[in-house]
């Protein structure tokens, strides 16, 4: 691990000032940062400990629920309002990581967690995300866990967060603050596809601090689920996952439908093509299969991960079956 300085801050403006210095990084749960500092993948010069800022509350807003950035995953997963109005969010959090990690990791940090791509995590190998221009070790290497949607020539790394998949599904808003003022960034604009710059993962600029994540309420969010498929029953990253929520019209058709995918894409993946098939349609096996085919028609597998097309389609169908049952 490289030398680093440490400073604990007590106020948001103090954090923003300290965080705008080159080479600084915010320390919250530490579960990604300390792990990757040990691997010399992240090498900040200074750590700004924000865990004592008053940003952990979960509050009602006109639009829905505003979750403070420092709320722990475990607390959000068990909040009665989250469980009732956003069951997919609670389920995604419960199925993430382990009990210890959920007690540590914050909601703001969760959306900034880095990919589990083994080449990204190994500083001795090429990786365009870690060292721009060095190449991609995964494309011709071991890529059975890698993405089939949203990939680029430069990068095929999967976005690791389960929680972020539900943010994509329900149009969450990431609230930030910085020396330049406050921003409310829709989740669709927050996560950047790799394209030619896989090192630019989000819309955050240096010094931006996430202060809250807002979940707008909707009938589809209140009737939602999160299906996660992985190599073992618990404590593993998704091979494929799907957040789905529906609102039924009086005639039984789907008045509103939200579908997002995890484990198969470079960013939390809103399944617009699938939603276009489903919206206004009658929920049945043929419709679900057609929706899944529409979404995965754009999949681009590499040498070892073509199985994720069928797995991803089945995961989506199961989520839709579950939420319309």
């Amino acid at each position: 691990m490289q030398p680093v300085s440490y400073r604990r801050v007590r106020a948001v403006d103090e954090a923003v000032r300290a965080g705008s210095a080159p080479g600084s990084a915010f320390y919250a749960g530490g579960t990604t940062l300390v792990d990757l500092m040990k691997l010399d993948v992240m090498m900040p010069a200074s750590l700004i400990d924000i865990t004592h800022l008053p940003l952990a509350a979960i509050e009602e807003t006109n639009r829905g629920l505003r979750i403070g950035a420092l709320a722990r995953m475990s607390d959000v997963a068990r909040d009665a309002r989250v469980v009732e109005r956003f069951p997919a969010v609670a389920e995604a959090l419960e199925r993430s990581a382990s009990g210890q990690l959920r007690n540590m990791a914050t909601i703001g940090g969760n959306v900034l967690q880095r990919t589990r791509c083994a080449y990204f995590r190994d500083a001795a190998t090429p990786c365009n995300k870690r060292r721009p221009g060095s190449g991609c070790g995964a494309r011709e290497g071991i890529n059975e866990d890698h993405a089939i949607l949203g990939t680029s020539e430069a990068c095929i790394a999967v976005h690791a967060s389960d929680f972020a998949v539900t943010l994509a599904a329900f149009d969450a808003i990431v609230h930030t603050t910085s020396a330049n003022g406050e921003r409310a960034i829709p989740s669709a604009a927050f996560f950047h596809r790799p394209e030619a710059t896989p090192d630019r993962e989000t819309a955050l600029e240096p010094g931006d601090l996430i202060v809250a994540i807002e979940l707008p309420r909707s009938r589809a969010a209140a009737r939602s689920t999160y299906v996660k498929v992985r190599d073992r029953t618990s404590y593993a990253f998704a091979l494929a996952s799907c957040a789905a929520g529906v609102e039924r019209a009086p005639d039984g058709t789907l008045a509103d439908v939200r579908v997002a995918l995890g484990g198969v894409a470079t960013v939390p993946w809103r399944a617009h093509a699938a939603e276009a098939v489903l919206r206004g349609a009658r929920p049945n096996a043929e419709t679900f299969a057609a929706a899944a085919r529409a979404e995965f028609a754009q999949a681009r597998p590499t040498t070892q991960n073509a199985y994720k097309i069928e797995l991803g389609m089945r995961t989506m169908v199961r989520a839709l079956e579950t939420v319309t049952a």
Partner: protein
Amino acid sequence: MIVEDPRSARTAERITLRVNGTDRTLDVDARVTLLDALRERLALTGSKKGCDHGQCGACTVLLDGRRVLSCLTLAVAAEGAEILTVEGLAREGELHPVQRAFVACDALQCGYCTPGQIMSAIGCIAEGRTGDDAEIAEAMSGNLCRCGAYPMIREAIARAAG
């Protein structure tokens, strides 16, 4: 207080950690994890270093009553918190009920993961996640046991929670 060491350009800090009810003051580099501070500086070697990357659970301790991984927690960031390690469980020579249950159920073989299992089990019981065997298995999935003592570990937790 931050102390700059001009020889190394490292940044050391004097901190006081409250461990098992006792204040312990030490100078640490900002990079030192809570696990290394406990083991290497405070001679509390009960918490184990397995993977050192948050994947095995052997380093689990309670921080303000919640189970966390000491290998991914910086020691400087733990200042001000109540830290409980496996060494702090016994009271006047009496083992903690979870420790007693692990002995009674033979819930270990080599014992390396056991302190982390026990601290995680205490957290798991406090979280109320011991309704049945499947719930215990799910709630304890962050603690690996290479000897495969899982059935007895789950039995010990169920017994202690009972």
